C-alpha cells in the first residue's frame, strides 16, 4: 500500500464520515423546522446568540449546537442494577455501526489520473473521430490499473469490496444488537419491551429489504454498488426498471431506521422512549444521532441502487451526449475529471433530497399499531417482493429472447426515461432557486371540522411567525 493510496483512503473516509456526521446534525434541525411548518406553528427559535445587542437566530440553526453542548454537560447516569459492560457497549455499537456502512457505497465515478504527474492536463480535451476522448478514458467502464496510457484509477469508494451490497446488509444487521443489548442492560421493563419490539421489527423488515433487492440484482447482474450505478448510467435508473422494488425498499429502509410511521420501539405514548429510556446525556445523544445517521446511510443506499447514484442523465465519462436510440442530438466533450466532480455533487445532492423526503414522511403519517406493523411486513411486503422476483424474471427473459426489435425499443425507452429525469431535475432545481429568492406566503387550508367551525366564527388569530 503506497503513501498515495493511504492518503487517498484517509481523505475518502473523512469525506464520507464527515458528510454523514454533518448531515445527521443538520437533519435534527431540518426535522424540527419541517415539523413546525407542517403543524403550522413556531419552530426552533429559542437558541439565540447576542452580538452587540443584536439577536442572531439563524432560522434555528443554532439548536443542533445547543443540543450538542447540553448533551455533553448533562449528568452521566447509569441505573444501579444495569449490566455495566453491555450498558456501555450499546451506544458505541449503535453509533459505530452506522459509519461502517458507508464503506462500499460509491460517491463518484472512478477517476483516471496520470500516475507520475503532479498537475495533470485536465483542461485539454483530445477527441477522436467518434467524439471519444483519446486519453484512455472509455465512455463506459473504468480505466484498467495497468493501462498503456499510464493512468491510475482512483475509485471514489472507501473500500472497493467485491461483495458490495452484501457487506452493507451484514453491517446493518449489527444495528439490531445495539438496540437489543441497550434495552436488556438498562434494567427497565419499558426498555426491554422497546428492545424486543426493535429487534422483532428490524429482523422482520430485513427479510423484505433483502428480497426486494433481488429483482434489482437480476437486472444489474452484480452485487457491486459501483457497477449498479454504471448500469443505470448506461440504461435507465433503477426506479424505472424496478418501480415496485423501489417502494418496498424505501418502506423497509424507513422501518429499519425505526422512524415514524414505524417508530414502535420508541413510541413515546407507550414506552417513554423505548430501549434508550435509561440513557442520559451524550449516551442518549449517541442513539439519537445514530438514528439520523441511519437515515443518511439509508438514503445513500436508496440513491445508489434506485436513483442512479452519481449518474446524471446524458452525462458520460467523456462529456455530454444526448442520444435517443441511434439519433444523436447533442455532443459536448467535457474533461473527465469535471464530469466526475459533477457526479459527486449529484450524489450528495440526491442524498439530501431523499433525506428531506424522509423527514416529510415522518411528519405526515401517524404511527402504526404493532400488529399492523407486523402484518404489513410479513403479509404484504414479503409476498410482494417475492412476486417482484417472479415478474422481473419472466419479463426480463422474455425481452432477452424477443430479439433486436424489442431491445431497440427498450433502448429508446431507456433514453426517454433519462430525458424525463433530466427535465424533472431541471424543473426542481429551477423551482428551488425561485423559491429561495421569492417572497414567503402563508396559506391556510382548512381541512378539519373544528378548524372549519373556528373559521366561521371569525377565524383563529394569525400573526407573522418568527424564525
Amino acid at each position, binding site marked *: 500500500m503506497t503513501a498515495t*493510496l493511504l492518503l487517498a483512503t484517509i481523505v475518502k473516509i473523512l469525506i464520507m464520515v464527515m458528510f454523514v456526521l454533518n448531515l445527521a446534525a443538520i437533519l435534527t434541525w431540518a426535522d424540527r423546522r419541517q415539523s413546525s411548518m407542517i403543524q403550522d406553528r413556531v419552530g426552533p427559535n429559542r437558541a439565540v446568540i447576542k452580538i452587540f445587542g443584536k439577536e442572531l437566530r439563524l432560522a434555528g440553526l443554532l439548536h443542533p449546537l445547543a443540543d450538542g453542548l447540553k448533551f455533553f454537560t448533562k*449528568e452521566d447516569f447509569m441505573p444501579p442494577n444495569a449490566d455495566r459492560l453491555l450498558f456501555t457497549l450499546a451506544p458505541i455499537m449503535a453509533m459505530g455501526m452506522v459509519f461502517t456502512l458507508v464503506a462500499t457505497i460509491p460517491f463518484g465515478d472512478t477517476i483516471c489520473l496520470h500516475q507520475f504527474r503532479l498537475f495533470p492536463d485536465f483542461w485539454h480535451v483530445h477527441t477522436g473521430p467518434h467524439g471519444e476522448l483519446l486519453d484512455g478514458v472509455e465512455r463506459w467502464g473504468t480505466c484498467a490499473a495497468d493501462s498503456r496510457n499510464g493512468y491510475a484509477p482512483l475509485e471514489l469508494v472507501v473500500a472497493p469490496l467485491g461483495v458490495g451490497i452484501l457487506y452493507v446488509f451484514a453491517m446493518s444487521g449489527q444495528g439490531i444488537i445495539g438496540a437489543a443489548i441497550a434495552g436488556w442492560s438498562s434494567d427497565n421493563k419499558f426498555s426491554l419491551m422497546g428492545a424486543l419490539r426493535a429487534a422483532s421489527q428490524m429482523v*422482520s423488515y430485513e427479510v423484505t429489504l433483502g428480497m426486494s433487492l433481488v429483482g434489482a440484482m437480476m437486472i444489474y447482474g452484480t452485487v457491486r454498488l459501483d457497477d449498479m450505478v454504471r448500469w443505470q448510467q448506461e440504461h435507465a435508473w433503477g426506479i424505472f426498471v424496478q418501480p415496485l422494488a423501489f417502494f418496498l425498499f424505501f418502506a423497509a429502509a424507513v422501518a429499519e431506521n425505526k422512524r415514524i410511521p414505524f417508530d414502535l420501539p420508541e413510541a413515546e405514548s407507550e414506552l417513554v422512549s423505548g430501549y434508550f429510556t435509561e440513557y442520559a446525556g451524550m449516551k442518549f445523544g449517541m442513539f439519537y444521532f445514530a438514528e439520523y445517521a441511519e437515515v443518511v446511510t439509508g438514503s445513500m443506499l436508496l440513491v445508489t441502487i434506485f436513483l442512479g447514484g452519481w449518474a446524471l442523465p446524458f452525462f458520460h465519462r467523456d462529456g455530454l451526449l444526448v442520444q435517443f436510440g441511434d439519433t444523436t442530438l447533442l455532443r459536448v466533450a467535457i474533461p473527465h475529471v469535471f464530469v466526475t466532480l459533477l457526479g459527486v455533487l449529484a450524489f450528495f445532492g440526491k442524498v439530501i433530497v431523499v433525506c428531506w423526503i424522509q423527514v416529510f414522511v415522518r411528519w405526515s403519517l401517524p404511527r402504526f399499531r404493532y400488529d399492523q406493523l407486523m402484518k404489513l411486513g410479513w403479509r404484504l411486503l414479503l409476498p410482494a417482493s417475492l412476486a417482484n422476483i417472479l415478474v422481473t*424474471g419472466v419479463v426480463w427473459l422474455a425481452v432477452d429472447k424477443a430479439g433486436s426489435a424489442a431491445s431497440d425499443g427498450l433502448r429508446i425507452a431507456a433514453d426517454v426515461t433519462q430525458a424525463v429525469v433530466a427535465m424533472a431535475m431541471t424543473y426542481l432545481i429551477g423551482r428551488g432557486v425561485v423559491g429561495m429568492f421569492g417572497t414567503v406566503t402563508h396559506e391556510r387550508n382548512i381541512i378539519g371540522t373544528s378548524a372549519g367551525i373556528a373559521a366561521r366564527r371569525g377565524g383563529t388569530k394569525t400573526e407573522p411567525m418568527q424564525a
Partner: protein
Amino acid sequence: MIATYAPLFMLLFFAAFLASVFYVAATFLGGQKKPNPGKQAPFECGSESSGGRHLKLSVKFYLTAILFVVFDIEAVFVYPWAIHFRALGWLGLAEMLGFLAVLVVALVYVWRKGALEWET
C-alpha cells in the same frame, strides 16, 4: 487484496474510535453525579416499578426470530442465482420458481397456523 481490505479496516477502526470518543467525552465532561432514590429507580411512566427487567415475554418474539432466520437464509440462496440469472435462462428461472414455491408454501403454512397474528 491489501488495497481492498486495508481501507475497510481503517474505516472500521475510525468508526469505533469516533464512537468511543463520544462515549469517553460524555463520561468526562458530564455534570456532577447526584444520585437520589427517585432517580435510581427504573422510570416506568412514573408508576411504581415492580422491579427490573424480569418479566414474561410473548412467545411471538421468538417465533419472529425463527421466521427471520428461515427467510433470510433463503434470501442468501437467491442472491447467487440472481447474479447469473440471464446466463441460466428459462431453466434456471423454473428451478428458482420451484425453490420460491417451497418458500411460499412455508409462508402460507405459517400464516394459516396463526404465527403472524399479533392481535391475541
